[in-house]
């Protein structure tokens, strides 16, 4: 009665979460720095780039006060490469393409470095490891180290869709980008559906099913179904 929503965040709430992702903008007007509840926002001084939460970037973009610099993965070339990994690579026939590594995590395929997670500390002294949407996975980057494969961030579908909707004139080839996003979505949804066979592993105590690389919205769509199947199998 107090709360009508089902367990697990719903798709509108996932979009809400994706709007906390940081993106890079090119301001077209000055604005002094702000102390927001979500953290400080540095002053806007054209033509200096700055990073803002997506919701604020979209607010400024809709009022034509800024341009959004698209994240490196939201580019037809990057998306083609990711689509190739998703469909052609034997290693990822039944898995999603590897997500961007967390801080301290080596790139996929790099077995020389061991992962090392470095915590921050909360005011109560508990350990805190940042994760999406609070990692700079959607900010523009000037130079990408060679050999680093493009990767879909956790909120790829939401960020991509919102940028296509509100800032398509800032993207490189919006029509091609839209088509590639749609293809990626279909390929990956097929993988979610094909993965139902292994779900009984999560029904046993101590067991689980790996979904590494899954996107937030894909998880939101599959959540009810996967949880329902596993709870039935138990």
């Amino acid at each position, binding site marked *: 009665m107090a709360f009508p929503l089902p*367990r697990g965040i719903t798709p509108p709430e996932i979009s809400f979460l994706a709007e906390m992702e940081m993106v890079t903008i090119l301001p077209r007007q000055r604005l002094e720095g702000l102390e927001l*509840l979500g953290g400080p926002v540095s002053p806007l001084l054209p033509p200096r780039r700055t990073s803002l939460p997506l919701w*604020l970037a979209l607010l400024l973009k809709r009022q034509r006060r800024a341009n959004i610099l698209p994240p490196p993965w939201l580019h037809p070339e990057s998306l083609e490469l990711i689509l190739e990994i998703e469909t052609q690579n034997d290693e990822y026939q039944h898995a999603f393409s590897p997500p961007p590594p967390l801080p301290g995590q080596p790139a996929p395929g790099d077995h020389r470095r061991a992962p090392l997670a470095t915590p921050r500390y909360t005011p109560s002294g508990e350990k*805190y490891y940042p994760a999406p949407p609070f990692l700079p996975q959607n900010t523009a980057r000037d130079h990408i180290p060679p050999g680093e494969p493009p990767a879909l961030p956790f909120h790829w579908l939401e960020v991509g869709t919102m940028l296509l909707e509100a800032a398509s004139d800032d993207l490189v080839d919006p029509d091609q980008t839209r088509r590639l996003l749609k293809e990626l979505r279909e390929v990956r949804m097929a993988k979610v559906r094909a993965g139902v066979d292994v779900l009984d592993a999560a029904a046993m105590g101590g067991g689980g099913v790996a979904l*590494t690389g899954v996107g937030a919205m894909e998880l939101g769509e599959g959540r009810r179904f996967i949880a329902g199947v596993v*709870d039935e199998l138990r």
Partner: protein
Amino acid sequence: MYLRSGPNEIAACRTSAPLPTTQSIPSIALLLRRKSSPHHPSSPPPKPKPQNIDQLTMDIDDILASVDRTADTSTPESTALDHQLLTRFWVAERAVPELLPWPTSLMERMMERVRRQIESIEDLAASSTDPITHHSAATTNLTLSILQSDLSRTQYLIRSLLRQRLSKLTAHSMHYLLLISRQQPQSQSQTDSSTPEDSIPEPPPFTDDTDDISSPLSKEEVSFLHAHQTLLAGHYGASFLNSFPPQLRRLDDNAGGTSMVQGPDGKEVVFVRCLVEEVRVVVPPGDGVEVEVEGTVLRMGEVWAVRWEGVRGAWGRGEVEVL
């Protein structure tokens, strides 16, 4: 929908939620006292001999932690950190089957920040109608709309969190009442109950001490839960239970070894991301097995669908995040 809200909503938030005013400083002091580790900043730790690298890194971690603990919680960096903590806690509370421990100090800091932000928005709105500073009306309007969007987003998080907790509390009210009363020294005098209300355990006495971190409920939630269950029991009694024989009227009947109090199901599946090098899923003792059994290993950056009870401990240590 929830991104835009007018001053009505801001006013509503202000009246409906009791905003703590001056608690933030004492609570930090209490927190320090509670965490009375030997590395308390005011009493420098007796320097142990570093025997190996692990020991040394542990020391450094502890020192860093103690420095962070004394850190000023009014800096912009700590605002951003608290926002991230609140967001992560909200997602977890929305996703897991049981009630998570109430983050007292985090919520006190957030409510204090919300209160101050509302004040500064009101000040800014008042100054924008001031004819002297009228020249920058357009910029002020933009600033105001940004500040209000930001405020509404935070208020949405808090409201959704509180409502989700209330819904969990009312769904398993007897379970949580028994849980919090069991922590108190029980003065059990099981007399023959004559009304269903008698089976409701007394809530723990209210203390101003926030040291009691063992209860997963906030003080407000405890009083809500008790009032809710008393009303419900009275209603059950009036509508049908009082026509039963007295020994069948209890709401926590244990007859035949089966408890009729239902709790949340820890075996339900949640989705987690592993944030540290390695986390082991565990099978907690129960179902005839006495010891904790270890299961699958999660590695850094991986996302898994696992039973909530298997990763509850790792979540408490901040090693996994619930998605």
